[in-house]
């Protein structure tokens, strides 16, 4: 099984986990992006959304499980064929939630390019934007090293 280990800077990443956990709480009952399917009847839509929320919860749980005792002692997280896919989706969910909860004032163009001077931001916006960039970096790492595992899974 292909596996990559990444050493993260504890002082930088650990404070971001508070933001991720807070947003994960908000994702327990709500979709990161509201469902846009208006063609479905009410019962079917409820079942549809329920399944999506359940799947989203599993994914977010896998993401949070990365930051275990090993992370806090060594600063190391590991990605493999098993967790790559749910972590990719969880990162997308939390990033969408970050936009909804914190980052809308920055504008969509800034969110697309990620081009912004962090020092110009006040808390809690700065920490939220760092979290947004961090999760994108996780996604890019997985795409770079484990995309074949995801496609073949």
């Amino acid at each position, binding site marked *: 099984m292909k596996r990559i280990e990444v050493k993260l800077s504890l002082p930088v990443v650990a404070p971001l986990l508070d933001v991720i956990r807070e947003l994960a709480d908000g994702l327990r009952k709500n979709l990161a992006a509201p*469902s*846009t399917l208006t063609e479905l009847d009410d019962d079917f839509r409820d079942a549809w959304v329920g399944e*999506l929320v359940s799947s989203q919860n599993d994914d977010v749980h896998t993401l949070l499980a990365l930051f275990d005792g090993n992370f806090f002692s060594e600063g190391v997280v590991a990605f493999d064929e098993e967790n790559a896919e749910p972590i990719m989706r969880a990162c997308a969910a939390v990033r969408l939630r970050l936009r909804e909860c914190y980052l809308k004032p920055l504008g969509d163009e800034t969110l697309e390019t990620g081009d912004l001077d962090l020092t110009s931001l006040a808390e809690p916006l700065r920490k939220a934007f760092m979290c947004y960039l961090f999760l994108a970096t996780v996604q890019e790492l997985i795409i770079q090293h484990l995309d074949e595992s995801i496609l073949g899974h």
Partner: protein
Amino acid sequence: MTTTRSHTLPQHETHTLLATDGAWRVVVLNDPVNLMSYVVLVFKKVFGFDEATARQHMLEVHEQGRSIVWSGLREKAEAYAFTLQQWHLTTVLETDEAH
């Protein structure tokens, strides 16, 4: 007669089903959050697109705001829409009648 009737009816029913239910489009809309590389990966994973096709659809989403990524029977369109929403891509279903 019985044989003929049982042979004819299902064919007729199949045609009716296809005519009213056959042209559903799965449309992915742009969002400012998901990475281009992520969207390409999702298209490859969900639809089995090659790199060039996945990239072309991603660019359509990015530049034109939307891309029709699949069309066909409603049931399968719904299954694709569900999977794309699991990956957090903004997805809508459309019928031909909507245009």
